[in-house]
């Protein structure tokens, strides 16, 4: 009788299976899924999670394009056909082969179906999966930690951050996190051309895939090579949930999706992986257009009770800065000398100070070595000699860990912002609306972001002038990046900026400077220079800028400019200041065009702020001024 019912089931499922393969199945008729059950399972959101189905035109299409990810030829576009094919293959396997059976290839899918249908091992036995079991045993999963790699200055593609998932063992020893495995989703490319990388990265030109590697490799890569601080958010996912996640990760071996830098990126796909841990989690739906890594961390942590603990792992550069700030001037001076001559004497220093100088000399020289600021051939013997000398100094380790910043990236301001403003432009009052989808500018609250880093995308400002009943596009910023990293005795980074967009400028219809007239120009500009941090929470910068503008209002249709830009930023508990002065020499007209800008932002609460901005532009003896008060809302 069971054979009959199973045959009936398989007919329902649309399969013609030789009777011999059914005859041996011990599956009892009482547990056979009804067609209603099959339909219900196919419509279950978790089935869509496991197979990466995305709603398209009223139907579904999987992100996966490889046919070996599916068991049905229609699998990519039909969740129901795929579910039917999976049940047929699975239940039809009477003597499944180790490692190659459907339950070894797709263990998460089969475990879920088994559990939902209540099919016991006695009713349908599974083949052993030694490869999977060995893999799971080596990883020894018990908990998971979401790791956020914060941005580092001077690399625009890192500014949005990066996320990975660490699979922790039950072991609580200090070594455990470093020896744990990290799951990373990344585009696979050896592209070295920055422009090709950008173009292909934006258009899905690279295959993206999951990889797994020891966490110490990632720590080395981010903390040491890239000088990015790591934030580790330990999650409360249960061992059973992590096990399910890894079963699913196993299914993803060799599977690639087109990688899109802004949307289907590292963080977005990692959310999909986390969804596979716990049926019912819906994380990716909050990122229909683009996924900023820090936002994905926030969405995960916003799940009730999902965060267990947080840990900060400072980068080499952060630790070195802390060390230098902690040392006396005499120690730092001695360290710089030891870098040249490891066995030099340090007269006047105590043994402890001598040890500090030796440590700082090594840490700084190693930092410079990795960032290629010192010769690659003559430096290694110096590094080795510094360590040998340190080992002969009988003083305990003097390095201390930098304190964890007060605000972690997940608690920084939200990355989207809307602003309502009212102000005056050359005697005409206006009201305005400003929309900025991403990410952070120099007056936004700095907590959780890299100080001195600005990255604005698609910032759009509209202004309405009641007097003239005019609605105008005041600015549209395609992108604007500032990378202001302060220099000190040890670090000598370059500060730079770059921006493209459209904005109104004080020009009349014939391209002359105007006190009252405004015309839009498109612009591209950028510059480079240096920054210093004269006091805690303060940053001052000086750069040389080049600017190119185009507009029908301009005499030749375009103009260029070249000149200095100087400014200071200051931040306190609740407010941020910016003062900037700049000049551009317009060589066609042989005039200097200067500007002064004062900005102040006061934080009302984490989501709201008031911003005052005053700016004056001057050419010869003419001036055009504007001022506004903006209410900002972060979301």
């Amino acid at each position: 009788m069971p054979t009959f019912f199973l045959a009936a089931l398989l007919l329902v499922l649309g399969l013609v299976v030789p009777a011999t393969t059914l005859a041996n199945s011990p599956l009892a008729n009482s547990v056979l899924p009804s067609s209603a059950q099959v339909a219900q399972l196919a419509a279950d959101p978790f089935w869509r999670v496991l197979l990466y189905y995305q709603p398209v035109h009223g139907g579904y299409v999987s992100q996966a394009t490889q046919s070996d990810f599916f068991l049905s030829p229609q699998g990519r576009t039909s969740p129901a056909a795929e579910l039917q094919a999976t049940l047929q293959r699975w239940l039809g396997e009477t003597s499944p082969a180790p490692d190659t059976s459907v339950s070894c290839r797709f263990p998460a899918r089969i475990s879920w179906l088994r559990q939902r249908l209540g099919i016991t091992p006695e009713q349908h036995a599974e083949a052993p999966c030694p490869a999977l079991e060995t893999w799971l045993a080596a990883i020894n999963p018990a908990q998971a930690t979401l790791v956020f790699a914060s941005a580092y200055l001077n690399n625009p593609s890192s500014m949005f951050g990066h996320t990975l998932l660490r699979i922790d063992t039950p072991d609580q020893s200090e070594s455990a996190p470093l020896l744990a495995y990290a799951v990373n989703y990344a585009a696979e490319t050896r592209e070295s051309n920055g422009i090709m990388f950008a173009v292909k990265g934006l258009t899905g030109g690279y295959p993206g895939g999951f990889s797994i590697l020891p966490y110490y490799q990632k720590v080395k890569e981010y903390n040491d090579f890239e000088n990015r601080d790591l934030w580790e958010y330990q999650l409360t996912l249960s061992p059973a949930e992590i096990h399910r996640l890894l079963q699913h990760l196993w299914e993803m071996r060799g599977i690639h999706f087109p990688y899109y830098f802004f949307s289907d990126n590292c963080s977005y796909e990692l959310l999909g992986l986390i969804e596979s841990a716990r049926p019912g989690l819906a994380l990716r739906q909050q990122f229909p257009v683009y996924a900023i890594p820090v936002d994905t961390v926030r969405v995960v942590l916003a799940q009730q009770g999902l965060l267990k603990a947080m840990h900060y792992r400072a980068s080499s550069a952060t630790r070195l800065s802390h060390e230098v700030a902690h040392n006396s001037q005499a120690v730092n001076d001695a360290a710089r000398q030891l870098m040249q001559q490891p066995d030099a004497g340090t007269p006047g220093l105590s043994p402890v100070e001598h040890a500090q100088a030796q440590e700082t000399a090594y840490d700084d020289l190693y930092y410079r070595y990795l960032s290629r600021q010192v010769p690659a051939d003559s430096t290694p013997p110096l590094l080795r000699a510094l360590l040998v000398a340190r080992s002969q100094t009988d003083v305990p380790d003097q390095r201390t860990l930098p304190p964890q910043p007060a605000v972690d990236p997940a608690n920084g301001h939200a990355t989207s912002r809307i602003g309502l403003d009212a102000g005056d432009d050359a005697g005409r009052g206006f009201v305005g609306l400003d929309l900025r989808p991403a990410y952070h500018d120099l007056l936004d609250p700095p907590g959780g972001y890299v100080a001195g880093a600005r990255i604005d995308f698609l910032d759009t400002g509209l202004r309405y002038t009641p007097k003239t009943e005019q609605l105008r596009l005041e600015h549209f910023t395609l992108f604007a990046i500032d990378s202001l990293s302060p220099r000190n005795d040890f670090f000598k980074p370059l500060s730079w900026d770059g921006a493209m967009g459209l904005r109104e400028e004080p020009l009349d219809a014939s391209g002359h400077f105007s006190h009252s007239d405004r015309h839009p120009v498109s612009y591209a500009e950028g510059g480079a220079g240096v920054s210093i941090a004269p006091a805690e929470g303060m940053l001052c910068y000086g750069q040389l800028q080049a600017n190119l503008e185009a507009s029908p209002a301009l005499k030749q249709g375009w103009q260029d400019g070249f000149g200095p830009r100087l400014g200071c930023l200051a931040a306190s508990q609740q407010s941020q200041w910016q003062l900037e002065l700049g000049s551009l020499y317009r060589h066609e007209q042989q005039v200097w065009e200067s500007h002064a800008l004062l900005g102040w932002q006061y934080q009302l609460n984490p989501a709201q702020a008031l911003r005052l901005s005053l700016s004056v532009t001057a050419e010869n003896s003419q001036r055009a001024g504007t001022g506004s008060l903006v209410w900002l809302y972060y979301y």
Partner: protein
Amino acid sequence: MMKKLLVVALLAGCSSFAMADQDVGCGLGTMIFSGQSGLLPKVFAATTNGTFGNQTFGITTGTLGCEQDGVISSRAKLSMYTGSNIENVARDMSVGHGDSLNVVADLMGVKDQDKAHFFETTKANFGKIFAPENKTTGQILAALHQVMVQDATLAPYAV
């Protein structure tokens, strides 16, 4: 002689894969202070923020020798770890303290009560372990092994 034997023994653990592994011997061939090879100037680098052209492990890139489906074989754990972190291990050893050295102790099975002695001994013998002629992780591990076998407390861990 002892040193050479040990290097050979350690290499043998993964020797069948050595041809596929550019870093011969699961990390043992890693040169200390070999720097950050192959990475481009940072501004235009195709960074790890989405690429792993320079990553050798991964369930997508197949077996490179000392790992299977991304996990490191237990025999290669110490050499892989030390090879990846040789500079940090050296830094920690020079002060007799630190996370990176602690991991090495754990991977060698050094018990908690013997760790302080392990740290102290490696610091005292730093010049021997990181002697200028020891350029690869394999040579450094062999020198460490030699120091340990001559120490009554640490000899049992040097196997």
